[in-house]
């Protein structure tokens, strides 16, 4: 079944075509990677999907419903969750509070829940999310004090606490140490048992290991799409992306 489908999706900033006519189809349960050189429009693309930016043209369908006109928060409530590329956890709040904000969002359904919620319910979800990313010991620490890699994990925990159907991870392994990366791959695989994952990633070994399909972008358009094996062989991709990567 198709979870997400964009057609003719475009975003221009003045004269710059950041995203041009993108058709993206993601079936439920898949791990999809989007790769491409810097400035290819990957982050812009997922910002359009998550509602941080408004598209210049095109449509976005999520579970069959056109969501292009919905504000970001309404998309989150429908299950599209975005984790930031530049970590933007609440640095002054504890890890607990960071995740609690996400966890309580799901529980606040009526006016009464806004004023009163059993904190034990929130706490249970917070603990679960923190333990999934391995941050249980840091519960009471201020998020700003965490090392960078742990802030990224906290960011993911916030995403998990929202119980997403589509989890968008924007450069999640950036700044992680090598041993942290393999743990992270396991985590993403575990997440994908319950949610569809859209992964923007620079680290090709992570992409090749996790993704079922890879979408390659360059200069705002999709230039190739295929399985990891196909993408590795694709000459155009090598020229546009892998080649420059190898040279660097």
């Amino acid at each position, binding site marked *: 079944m198709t979870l997400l489908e964009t057609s003719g999706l475009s975003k221009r900033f003045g004269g710059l075509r950041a995203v041009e006519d993108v058709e993206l189809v993601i079936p439920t349960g898949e791990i999809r990677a989007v790769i491409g050189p810097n400035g290819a429009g990957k982050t812009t693309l997922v910002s359009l999907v998550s509602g941080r930016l408004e598209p210049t043209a095109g449509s976005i369908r999520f579970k069959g419903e056109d969501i292009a006109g919905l504000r*970001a*928060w309404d998309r989150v409530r429908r299950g599209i969750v975005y984790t930031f590329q530049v970590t933007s956890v609440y640095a*002054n709040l504890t890890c607990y*509070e960071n995740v609690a*904000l996400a966890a309580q969002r799901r529980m606040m359904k009526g006016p009464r829940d*806004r004023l009163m919620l059993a*904190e034990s319910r929130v706490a249970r979800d917070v603990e679960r999310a923190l333990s999934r990313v391995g941050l249980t010991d840091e519960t009471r620490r201020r998020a700003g004090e965490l090392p960078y890699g742990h802030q990224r994990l906290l960011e993911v925990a*916030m995403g998990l606490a929202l119980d997403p159907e589509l989890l968008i991870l924007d450069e999640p392994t950036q700044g992680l140490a090598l041993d942290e990366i393999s743990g992270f791959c396991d985590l993403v695989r575990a997440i994908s048992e319950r949610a569809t994952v859209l992964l923007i990633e620079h680290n090709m070994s992570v992409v090749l290991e996790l993704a079922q399909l890879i979408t390659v972008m360059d200069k705002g358009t999709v230039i190739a799409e295929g399985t990891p094996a196909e993408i590795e062989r694709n000459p155009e991709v090598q020229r546009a992306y892998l080649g420059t990567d190898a040279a660097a």
Partner: protein
Amino acid sequence: MNRRIFARVLALHLGVVALLLVAQFFLSPYHHTNLARIMIFATFASGYNILLGYTGLLSLGHAMFFAAGVYGAGLPVFYLGFGAPEAFATGVASSFALAIVFGLIVIRTGGVSFLIVTLMFAQAAFLATLYFNEITLGDQGIVISQTLPPLEVGGAVLEFSDPDVKYNAALLLFAVAFLVCMAIVYSPIGRVFVAIRENEARTRMLGYNTYKYKLASLTISATISGASGAMYALLFSYIGSTFASIEYSIFPLLWTLVGGMGTLLGPLLGTGLMFYLVDIASGLTESHLIVVGIALVALVLYFPKGLMGTIREKWLPWLP
């Protein structure tokens, strides 16, 4: 949140209210009256603090909400012969209604724009109290003690000129506002307010319609401010344009900053301290408001977290 900590917080804050309750039996008449005034203004500051301290929105227009309470309560007493409870209700309702209308218009502006818009609307409101001086009597104002009937509660007749009535009515208002603020700070909505203060864009991406929450914060803040205005009009039986002037927008900012924004006890401490500082200075010089200026500059330069904020940072991290 941890039960033990919550018990401690509750004990501390109820203790403060109990202290205020007991204090009236030991204070000289002079301090007795002062403290009644301080508690009303501290209520004003507590309301202001919900918006500035917990939600991170700096308003320079809260005088209009205070004045909405003052006029909303005072005018019906003077013209329609309302009793105190009805007048208090109309006062609170006026500030609530004003906050909703104003909020719907301005809540999309942020930062400096929000500040200037609040300043501008409040100024328009101030000018309006002068413009309609046939009703409000403008600067000169109206004394309502002649028309305000005493309150009968269970056979007892309460005269608003009685200092004990003043003190305990002010205390009741403050205690209720204090507990309401505490409940909000510990509620899910309060958690979202803090999230907006810390990072609004992130909060949107957690699925919160931040405009709605900011509107809620503004409305709660304005209504508490309006309640203090209504109580002030009833207890000190005077309504006038001065309550809508820019001074009354700056004072709650000052009180909140001195006490420590984003702390529950801060507004009370800040109001008390500044009240007495201005009071002492006014005995020394005609230019007593200079302490307001010096305090604001000193706060910004040396003491940005205020009294309670500093105490929280250094010694008592569990303070709300």
